[in-house]
């Protein structure tokens, strides 16, 4: 009898304990969400408020008269639509280039035995291009682009972002390829396929989650990049959204409403893409962790 009461007591204790941990878990989750989403909420509300309400004190947190004037201002009156287009073209093109070149390089590094231990040396050398701060290359790249007459072009940004993303693609994809059993490619070769055919028809379909995860990261980096875009473009012809938004901080005024409206729109494409590849994303990021 006594032991049974004790068991009961213990299980009740356990239950209370697990309830407490569950509660704690939710508290932590809410705190993390608040921390990361509060600025986004602030930005969204600013973009919808009139200038008077933007500067009201205390600020109207939830109740205000929404207006789309800043969106009109940004995308119709000013050239933010063009900036958006430039950002999209540059991000997509540089991601595509980095994926194609990087995947081929990663496959070679993962599968072919190069002389002089080049597999390892090349990989490290590729990684080393990311080891110094970006600002170090800003001036040389500016001079190179000037001599190539590529200043103020989208091409300059595509080239620079491709180079920027390549090391990341190579290292990510090299890991995914290394985890794949060689038998499958060898079977494809014996079945009469070429190396490239085996890569396209057998290997790449199997690393799609990895490709998707890598693509998302490349897109985010290219989409948000500010420094090189600022250095290499000065005119509207090739201005990206981040530079365009920052340009509204002027000597005389700061256009909070326009900036927030543009920034709010800037979130959407990456959000949509990340959601659409979400099922691959989770698998891609955990790939190799568990042999499946």
């Amino acid at each position, binding site marked *: 009898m006594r032991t049974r009461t004790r068991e009961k007591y213990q299980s009740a204790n356990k239950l209370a304990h697990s309830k407490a941990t569950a509660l704690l878990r939710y508290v932590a989750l809410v705190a993390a969400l608040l921390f990361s989403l509060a600025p986004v909420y602030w930005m969204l509300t600013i973009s919808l408020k009139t200038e008077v309400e933007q500067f009201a004190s205390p600020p109207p947190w939830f109740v205000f008269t929404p207006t789309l004037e800043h969106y009109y201002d940004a995308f119709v009156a000013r050239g933010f639509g063009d900036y958006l287009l430039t950002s999209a073209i540059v991000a997509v093109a540089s991601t595509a280039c980095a994926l194609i070149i990087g995947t081929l390089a990663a496959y070679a590094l993962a599968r072919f035995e190069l002389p002089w231990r080049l597999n390892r040396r090349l990989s490290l050398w590729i990684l080393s291009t990311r080891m110094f701060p970006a600002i170090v290359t800003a001036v040389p790249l500016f001079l190179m682009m000037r001599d190539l007459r590529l200043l103020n072009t989208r091409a300059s940004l595509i080239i620079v972002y491709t180079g920027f993303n390549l090391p990341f693609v190579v290292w990510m994809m090299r890991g995914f390829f290394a985890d794949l059993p060689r038998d499958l490619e060898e079977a494809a*070769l014996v*079945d*009469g396929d070429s190396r490239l055919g085996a890569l396209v028809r057998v290997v790449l379909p199997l690393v799609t989650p990895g490709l998707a995860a890598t693509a998302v990261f490349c897109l985010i980096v290219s989409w948000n990049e500010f420094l090189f875009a600022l250095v290499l473009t000065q005119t509207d012809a090739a201005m990206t959204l981040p530079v365009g938004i920052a340009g509204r901080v002027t000597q005389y005024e700061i256009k909070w409403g326009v900036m927030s409206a543009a920034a709010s729109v800037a979130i959407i494409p990456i959000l949509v893409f990340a959601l659409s590849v979400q099922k691959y994303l989770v698998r891609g990021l955990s790939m190799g962790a568990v042999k499946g």
Partner: protein
Amino acid sequence: MGIEFRNVNKTYGDNCVVDDLSLTIDDGEFIVLLGPSGCGKTTTLRMLAGLESVTSGDISIDGERVNDVPTQHRDLAMVFQSYALYPHMTIAENIGYPLRVRKLDKPERAARVQRVAAMLEIETLLDRKPRQLSGGERQRVALARAIVREPRAYLMDEPLSNLDARLRVQMRGELKRLQHQLRTTTIYVTHDQAEAMTLASRVAVMKKGRLQQFDAPMNIYNHPVNRFVAEFVGSPSMNFIEGSQLTIGIRPEHIQVLSQPQDGAIPATVYVTEQMGNETFVFLTVGTNRLIARAPADFRAADESRVWITISKDKTHFFDPVSGEKRATDNTDWIRILSVSSAA
């Protein structure tokens, strides 16, 4: 014609994996490369497939030197130990893959896939994915992918080793039957001597990268060229009696166990008996030697009981105790060795 290895070597750094291998395989033969793990048999197969480079020597197929021909142009088909089915393709797509890369049109492809699927009784699986199949079914799909076209040879790398015992024996029979129907040169790698004995037209026994013997299974069994081959082929293994001048090899079925003394019989003690159902293995102690004998199914003897053995004298083998090479010897000699060791 056929396949020829001429003085082929394969080294990784200082490690010699295949050592001066010369082998001529005739058209339509079923060759088994047999040996323990690490003997170079899989490397040999992979060199033939073009998946490993050849360090020195020549490999030719139908008289054409293929050393520098890339895998995809060698026109071979291979069944991998892991089956290597493409996980993202259906079974039909898996089997049709070799035809797809050869740009056969779709109806022709479908017809041929259907034909081999019927041959291997896997028609009902064609729309499934490999992960939905059992081991035996995957094995058939791998086989179907190999035979869907007519390659110059089939290469098989331990294709049955991932199956359970019953299925393995069944597939073994089907493989043999299939090869008789197709008459395509087949090179088959295994460490299982029973597979080698049952499947091969000729067996190549390898050890540490060197070819030991290349002959018909029954010749390998009855006339092994050295102690390694004698020991590796046959189950239970051949008995060896070590003398200072000579090692004597006797197969278990050539030792007759008697419960009564008989003229010329040697006394022995029963260590243990194993009843297999159709026969009985008798483990014996003769002097300092341990021997295994095959006895009829109804043979019974208690542990430590005294029995007598006779040995079929014309079926014994003699090996050099140092090199292990086969030696021809006068019959009187070894009886003395055996009686000396049994007296001890």
